[in-house]
């Protein structure tokens, strides 16, 4: 078996024990690849555990710029005894097995189609370093040094990365540099020429892109969008949105002099209260948001109904994870589309945004505040674990200083003073379904009203009159229509040739989907792609679907939830949309998707769910 040979196109999997300090070493490696100018997408595959369970870190390097998970592993760095045999077994034929050769490999490791690369990590480490606590951490750095040699990376990029990483704890720099060199030297002396996976610096591939996780970008979007009140309850994978918000608030929201914070971050007792805090603040004129994941969405449903019906502009970030129930808390999914689209009892629907990149997390979150206030409704930003918690290559974040917050329809003191006709909170004077709000404390005698979740007339008075109720509900439909004109439009990515097949996707699925489409295009199969950015769906979505003979909807949940939403909301026949799903908790993998699409399109069969397993981890 020939060893796999490729340059700037490979997948390395690091197999570690959770809590062993491997994360920073692995990060260092991924950043170094990025600094070589190579498109990189690192993905954490981690357990719901603080210490002891297996964790993997999969780094894909792709010269073509493919950022989705590829599937298949070319090299594994096997640092976890518990999973070592499985990691060994799952390597592709011709792959490289890097292991700690301080101990001999057991006999059952007898594959003939692999290249074994032993690095005596424990021995090297024990000889070089005394501090037992440091040893565990430095062992990880030693293998990074080894990889640098094996993959032909510039060692300076790694040493620079170490210096940057420890600039605030400079006493840690020398031992880390030493560890890097130990690994590098050992590999050079013992494994010269054995590894045919290589990297080469490129200056033309990533341009001005950044490497950032989606949750940090979301948090920054909330800062730029002017959020001042946050209610939240910890839940993976959304917690770091709030942590980042707190850090950015420290940086950008301290008052001069007094040092007080121009933001209130309230850790609530549960998600009900978290959203209640956001509703109370938004009702009272502050921009407010919360971030949560599936279980939190379930708890928030009651309040989402209130915000919908009382028309309160809340921003909710849902970093989706694998359900149902507690599900797989540290695995990714796009499983809350229906739960969010229709959250709460009665006739409710909510505005959804679907970011795919950190840059979109940033702009969509910032924009969500404008949309929520303009439309006086909840806006849910539908991120997921893959996007939120993994570093992603992304266009730089961009802000237009000339743009002004759209605070929507709010009457201030002078406008109230000047009012001649009777004001009604829910009167649709402009025909867009949106009334004018007022904030408490604005005017001594005008503009006070009673907000309620019970049925109300245009003046917000309680009413059980059928006509009044119907009128109000119809106005909300009118508002829904208005929203379509304000939400981001879907993005069409037409094939080079005329295509009879269309593919609809959204969020993190777009990377593997795009890669699959390009792969199939090279085989002569043309597919047009539509990336959905928001719900409600605009006419462009319907036109795209009607304009193709067959349309595939690719998403990461079992029940094809976006497809269901499309069928229901766009009045389509089920056979118009073919479901393609991947929902094993791992980010959807491009290679498996290609296989599935090939079979599906060859069989001419539609409306069967095709599961594209991401591959075990």
């Amino acid at each position, binding site marked *: 078996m020939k060893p796999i040979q490729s340059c700037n196109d490979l997948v390395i999997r690091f197999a570690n024990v959770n809590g062993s300090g491997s994360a920073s070493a692995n990060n260092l490696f991924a950043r170094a690849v990025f600094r070589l100018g190579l498109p990189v997408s690192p993905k954490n595959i981690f357990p719901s555990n603080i210490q002891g369970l297996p964790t993997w870190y999969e780094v894909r390097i792709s010269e073509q710029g493919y950022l989705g998970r590829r599937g298949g592993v070319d090299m594994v760095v096997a640092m976890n005894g518990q999973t070592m045999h499985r990691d060994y077994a799952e390597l592709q034929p011709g792959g490289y097995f890097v292991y700690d050769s301080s101990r001999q490999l057991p006999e059952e490791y007898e594959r003939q189609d692999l290249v074994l690369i032993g690095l005596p990590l424990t021995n090297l480490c024990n000889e070089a370093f005394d501090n037992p606590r440091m040893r565990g951490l430095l062992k990880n750095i030693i293998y990074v040094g080894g990889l640098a040699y094996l993959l032909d990376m510039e060692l300076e990029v790694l040493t620079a990365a170490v210096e940057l990483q420890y600039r605030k704890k400079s006493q840690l720099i020398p031992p880390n540099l030493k560890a890097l060199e130990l690994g590098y030297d050992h590999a050079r002396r013992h494994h010269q020429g054995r590894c045919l996976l290589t990297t080469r610096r490129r200056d033309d591939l990533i341009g001005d892109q*950044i490497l950032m996780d989606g949750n940090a970008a979301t948090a920054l979007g909330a800062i730029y969008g002017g959020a*001042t*009140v946050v209610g939240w309850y910890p839940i993976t994978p959304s917690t770091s949105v709030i942590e980042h918000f707190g850090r950015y608030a420290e940086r950008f929201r301290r008052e001069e002099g007094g040092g007080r914070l121009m933001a209130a971050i309230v850790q609530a007792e549960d998600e009900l*209260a978290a959203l209640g805090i956001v509703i109370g603040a938004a009702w009272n004129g502050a921009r407010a948001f919360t971030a949560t994941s599936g279980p939190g969405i379930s708890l928030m449903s009651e309040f989402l109904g209130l915000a919908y019906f009382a028309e309160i502009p809340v921003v909710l970030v849902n970093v989706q994870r694998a359900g149902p129930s507690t599900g797989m808390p540290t695995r990714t999914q796009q499983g809350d589309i229906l739960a969010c689209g229709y959250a709460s009892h009665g006739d409710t629907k909510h505005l959804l945004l679907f970011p795919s990149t950190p840059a979109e997390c940033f702009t969509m979150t910032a924009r969500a505040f404008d949309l929520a206030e303009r439309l006086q409704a909840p806006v849910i930003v539908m991120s997921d674990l893959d996007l939120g918690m993994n570093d992603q290559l992304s266009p730089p974040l*961009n802000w237009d200083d000339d743009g002004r917050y759209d605070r929507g329809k709010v009457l201030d003191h002078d406008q109230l003073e000047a009012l001649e006709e009777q004001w009604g909170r829910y009167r649709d004077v402009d025909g867009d379904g949106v009334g004018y709000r007022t904030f*408490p404390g604005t005017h001594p005698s005008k503009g006070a009203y009673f907000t309620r*979740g019970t049925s109300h007339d245009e003046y917000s008075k309680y009413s059980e009159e059928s006509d009044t109720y119907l009128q109000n509900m119809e106005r909300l439909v009118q508002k829904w229509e208005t929203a379509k004109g304000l939400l981001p439009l879907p993005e069409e990515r037409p094939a080079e040739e005329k295509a009879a097949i269309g593919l609809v996707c959204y969020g993190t699925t777009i990377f593997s989907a795009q890669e699959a489409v390009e792969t199939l295009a090279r085989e002569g199969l043309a597919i047009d792609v539509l990336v959905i950015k928001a719900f409600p769906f605009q006419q462009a979505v319907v036109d795209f679907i009607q304009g193709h003979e067959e349309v595939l909807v690719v998403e990461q949940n079992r029940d094809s939830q976006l497809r269901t939403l499309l069928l229901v909301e766009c009045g389509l026949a089920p056979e118009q949309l073919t479901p393609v799903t991947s929902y094993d908790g791992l980010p959807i993998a491009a290679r498996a998707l290609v296989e599935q699409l090939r079979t599906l399109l060859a069989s001419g069969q539609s409306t069967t769910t095709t599961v594209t397993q991401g591959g075990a981890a």
Partner: protein
Amino acid sequence: MTFFRPSFRHPQLPANQAGYYLRDYEGGISTLCAGCGHDSINGAIIQACYELSLEPHRIVKLSGIGCSSKSPAYLLSAAHGFNSVHGRMPSIVTGANMANRELLYLGISGDGDTASIGMGQFVHAVRRNLNMVYIVMNNGCYGLTKGQYSATADKGSVGKKGEPNLLESIDLCEIAIQLGAGFVGRSFSGDKQQLVPLLKAAMSHIGMAFIDVISPCVTFNNTPTSTKSYHWVREHSEATSTFDFVPFRQEITTDYENGSTEAVTLHDHSVIYLHKKDPEVAVTDRRQAVDALEEHKEEGLILTGVLYVDPESEDTHTILNTSERPLNSLEQAELCPGSAALKEINEELR
């Protein structure tokens, strides 16, 4: 429902210091049952706001769901109101207060709304010492869903349906004292003499001011065997002390004897003068406050009045060290770091 209400009532009452008449604090006509304790409490709230010369539009009234939670509709029509969902008023107030710390937040709830479905939100608002007045109209039952016992119904108490309540009751005042409310009081809807000054003191306190007002439900829980009936409460209540509340700005004209009177100065410089039966019991001591409640309970008595005050307690904004300006008044120029800062961030991420 709309009723015509003459606007020339209370001709004897002049405008208060802020220039408002009593009617300026009133709200819509009540749709509660005639004789419901909640209505009397609403009257007392109106009276207290008037006497304190509060500007009605600087008050925010919020509630959950229940007969009691309908109250915001029956008072302060010049104030913004928010009738939220069952048991969730405290989180709405938390958010509202975070957005604008300059208004007075009046939360009205029921014993079902607070002691059952809303227990979590209640205790955590107390823990945060949120700056608000939290009033529970406590009738020992769920009025709006037709009289089921609530978690504050006393063990052995018998309501209209005739079956005694067999479960332990929750004492919301004790919980509030234990969890850090800066001001805790208990009163009776039928005792305006006590309730109005108690409300005024609560409204002047900065931090969580919690008042549990026993408020008979005439329809479902006013039987002679119910411990939340008019009859029972009149027979079995005992005040911690009589007290005077002297708002800041008002001159103190009376002299109090030393020894039996304790003066507690609130953050806004108002003073509560407590004329105590037992000069030994300090109302500023948590443990003594809880003991006093328990001792009276053992004797089958309901202790009323100011139960506990901590004038030094810090409210949520102080704890979080948030801006002294209302957060909802901050403008884009202050909130948005702009493109130059973003450039720097992009650079850090390369």
